[in-house]
């Protein structure tokens, strides 16, 4: 990997972290409404995963989508603008935090109903298969999503039709306040893939290098025409499920323990220890990114609200 690539991965993780911290503040200030699900702690997952996708590969995820959006190339400003419901947001302020998307960047959203986007992901893959495109679909979802019927119907169909889809389960240990063992029949999500005869593997989501290694193999399998592949990535969300989560369901020292494995810190140490990038260059990135994100916040805040007649736009294409 080129040095520039290493740097870019670091930069993206830092930007995601900063955008999420800014979002939390804007939410407290009442400038962001609705539900806000932060990606803090999980940055290495989507950053590592999406760094390996080709432009023709489609990405689709759940409502915890800010990081994914940034990895897919949506600017911090567009993300923040959408969170604040501005006309310049990636969904024109109509979707909000849970519904970021930019199909020109092959990012298909941002979906708020747990598991409902999995059948849609199967359809995206079907579309590419039908049109003989060599793109694959990368579909991300949480551990909790593996318990709903949509997951089952989508995985079964993907195997029966040998669809080019990579199922990526971000196992952050909890679905809201319910731990995996209280909601799932099996402790490892990848075991569910065995029930469909779908090849699968598991990776440490706090170590971006491990994520990339597992992803490489997974993508090769799917692009090689072997049909679906299931990748479980172990991670942890450092913040509550969404803003205002009382967090009665976990102990603060459990959170602390995980925070010691901060994916950004781990990657930073890796880069320095392996002499890939000197500390000061990383510091420069930190500073530049901070400046950049604060600018994005200001610009997004100054951006215009959608016009009133936007209310009736896009209900239908025709008529």
């Amino acid at each position, binding site marked *: 990997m080129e040095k520039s690539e290493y740097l870019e991965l670091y930069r993206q993780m830092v930007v995601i972290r900063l955008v999420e911290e800014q979002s939390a503040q804007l939410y407290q200030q009442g400038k962001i409404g609705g539900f806000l699900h932060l990606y803090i702690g999980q940055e290495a997952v989507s950053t590592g995963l999406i760094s390996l996708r080709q432009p023709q590969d489609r990405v689709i995820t759940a409502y915890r989508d800010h990081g994914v959006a940034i990895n897919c190339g949506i600017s911090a400003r567009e993300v923040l603008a959408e969170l604040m419901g501005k006309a310049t*947001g*990636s*969904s*024109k*302020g*109509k*979707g909000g935090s849970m*519904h970021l*998307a*930019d*199909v*020109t960047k092959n990012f*298909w*959203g*941002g979906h708020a*109903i747990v598991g*409902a986007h*999995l*059948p*849609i*992901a*199967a*359809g*995206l*893959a*079907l*579309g*590419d298969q*039908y*049109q003989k495109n060599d793109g694959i679909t990368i579909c991300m979802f949480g551990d909790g999503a593996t318990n709903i*019927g*949509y997951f*089952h*119907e*989508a995985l*079964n*169909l993907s195997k*029966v*039709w040998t669809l080019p889809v990579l199922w990526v389960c971000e196992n952050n240990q909890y679905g809201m306040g319910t731990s995996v063992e209280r909601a799932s029949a099996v402790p490892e999500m990848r075991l569910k893939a065995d029930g469909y005869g779908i090849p699968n593997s598991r990776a440490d989501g706090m170590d971006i290098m491990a994520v990339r290694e597992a992803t490489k193999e997974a993508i090769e399998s799917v692009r090689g025409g072997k049909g679906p592949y299931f990748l479980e990535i172990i991670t942890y969300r450092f913040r509550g499920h969404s803003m205002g989560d009382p967090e009665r369901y976990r102990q603060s020292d459990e959170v602390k323990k995980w925070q010691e494995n901060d994916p950004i810190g781990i990657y930073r140490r890796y880069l320095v220890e392996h002499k890939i990038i000197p500390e000061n260059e990383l510091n420069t990135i930190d500073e530049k990114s901070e400046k950049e994100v604060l600018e994005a916040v200001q610009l997004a805040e100054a951006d215009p609200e959608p016009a009133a007649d936007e209310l009736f*736009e*896009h*209900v*239908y*294409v*025709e*008529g």
Partner: protein
Amino acid sequence: MARITMREAISQALWEEMERDQSVFILGEEVGVWGGTYAVTKGFYDHFGPDRVRDTPIAEAAIVGAAIGAALTGLRPVAELMTINFAFSAMEHIVNEAAKLHYMFGGQFILPLVIRAVGGGGRQLGATHSQTPDAVFAHFPGLKVVAPGTPEDAKGLLKAAIRCDDPVLFIEHATLYQVRADVPDGDYTVPIGESKIQRPGRDVTIVTYSKMLEISTKAADQLAKDGVEAEIIDLRTLRPLDMGPVIQSFKKTNRAVIVEEGWRSYGVGSEVAARIYEQAFDYIDAPIQRVAQKEVPLPYNRTLEQLALPQVEDVVKAVKEVL
């Protein structure tokens, strides 16, 4: 002009659109090898092959969900739900995904999707398999809901639906497949969102659609014997709902009966009645009558089932009420 059945009309529309446009394909339970539970896609599998006529597992959410995804990639899927009763198993994807994605993401992509589903009662299939929940789906903005009552409209509306860039729920009726009527030759479409006078008359306006068009026509024939000329308006599309011809007719007859197969409460008739009152208040001579299904889960026993479903006599009686 060719005289064909409703089944043939729908089958022809699908066939011709698939011949015309490679991006059109069919997916659903038993649409392929079986040829369609109601034989609508008979012969398609052999002609178009397994890629374009796709048998699916029994998984309604996946059928509609996969169709949505495929539509997002630029294809024009026609998803078949074996019956509309199974649409409840795909409810999330029909009303919460298909109906909302275009709007919710700021119109950055289109969703050219058709969901075909056959509904209706009268074949002793019992409560879970005999419903006409059309109003339920028509309640959701973002979705278009079409329910033709004649072979001509069925063919033209299905072609329009397949060419439409919005998601369309296309509701057929199991007891109409055998109905025969003239259909124009060659390629034609019938615009979505336009009601139509199916039978002109001056004395009373009967507003109906789908299977109840047949019942209403029989009622009109009976009434004609007593010198009552009923004008029948076929809604054809439930969303967007075109009240134009209804109001025009009502301003002439000042009397209306709305006939639907589904349950009365929160049904199609209530919406149409409410709109007539709103848009033609000064023309009303008598309270508008609604003829609908009795408010019970449809029973299996034939006699009871027929008691629950709207009959020709019910329509005649309702018309006499408003005269």
